[in-house]
């Protein structure tokens, strides 16, 4: 049996949940380097303009997606635009993503306003999850972003997060440490 076909079927079956490299290995009973080369092979086949799908690496999983250049065709099928995230939801997500794991109180402190409702909303959309309890008084929940969060923003992994804006304070600190480095060199 040609494993390339099995891999294609597997990617179809898992849909937007995607499949990790490990899962490909255990399902197809192959080692990682074989899995990788199969993925590359299938990927390059999809690059052909006659094909309508491609393999994307989103939220740490491989999944089949349509191609960007075809969007205008599919958007005709979409009657209601998918609910976009509100300003408050984006703020809370950004704070969690750059500080995870973090408690709700810490989010509130940064925003100067209660985020209880927003956090609940994000939990129900699976964009964040509870990963444990903090040692702070009252043992509050600790939150982290999920794979769905990464996918929602088209990110492969948490390392792909856009860099946080550098503030003047940071710049000064950096300059200072650089100066020290230079002094050390001298």
């Amino acid at each position, binding site marked *: 049996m040609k494993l390339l076909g099995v891999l294609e079927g597997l990617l*179809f*079956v*898992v*849909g*937007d*949940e995607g499949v990790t490299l490990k899962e490909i290995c255990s399902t197809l009973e192959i080692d990682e380097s074989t899995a990788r080369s199969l993925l590359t092979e299938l990927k390059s086949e999809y690059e052909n303009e006659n094909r309508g799908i491609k393999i*994307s690496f989103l939220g740490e999983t491989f*999944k*089949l*997606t*349509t*191609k*960007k250049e075809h*969007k205008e065709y*599919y958007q005709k099928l979409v009657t209601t635009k*998918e609910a*976009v*995230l509100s*300003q*408050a939801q*984006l*703020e809370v*997500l*950004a*704070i969690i993503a*750059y500080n995870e794991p973090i408690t709700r109180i810490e989010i509130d*402190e*940064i*925003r*100067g*306003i*209660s985020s209880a409702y927003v956090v609940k909303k994000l939990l129900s959309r699976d964009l964040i999850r509870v990963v444990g309890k903090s040692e702070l008084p009252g043992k509050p929940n600790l939150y982290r972003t999920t794979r769905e969060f990464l*996918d*929602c*923003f*088209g*990110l492969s992994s948490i390392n792909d997060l*856009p860099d*946080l*804006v550098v*503030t*003047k*304070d940071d710049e000064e600190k950096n300059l200072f440490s650089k100066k020290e480095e230079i002094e050390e060199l001298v």
Partner: protein
Amino acid sequence: MNLQLQDFEGPFDLLLHLVRVSKMDIYTINISDIIEQYLEFINSIDKFDIDASSEYLVISSELIHLKSKMLINKQMDEEEEDEEYSIKSEEDLREKLIEYERYKSMTDTFRTLEENRQDYFTKLPENLKNYVEEKVVNSDVSVDDLVNAFLEMQRRINFQKPITTKVTRKEFSVKERISEIRNLLKSRKRLEFTELFEDIVTKENIVVTFLSLLDMSKNKEITIKQDKIFSTIVIESM
């Protein structure tokens, strides 16, 4: 410009807006001017919905406190810290606003990423439920087995019933319990709190034991220690 509270994501957002409108830099802006403007704005809102905007009021009071502190501190030492207030100094407020703006400024980037992600589609996973093998129960059993199992159960229940039941009510005094605990401590020095309740089943005895411990503690006979929340409570004689 006619602004509503609904236009803002919170008091920090409002403060940042005021900084922006004044065409100043957050690093150089005069904090007391901004406080003034904030309070003016809050006062100007005609219908103040207390539920929706309590956080704005909290920050109002914090800012009033900060402002008065700034006035006094011109002559006094800076060192005085107020634990009750979340905004501790001019610098603190500045830092909080800068911190908030960092994340706020990221939201545009995330918004763009989110929009770009909607340029391509995925499908839901296939339903593979039909392929899940159901555990087949070994069907090699008959109605007789069921009846026998039921009879066996009834027999066991009969065993559990006490043969004769005699109700005696034993008075259990705090005094007695104290001397019991004392004896235990003589031989052991250290006792775990839960040990004392191990053989006790009645509510009355639990209460008596607890009272005894409180009493002994009050008389400085024992010390009760707990390292951290929910850990074991240790009782030691003094």
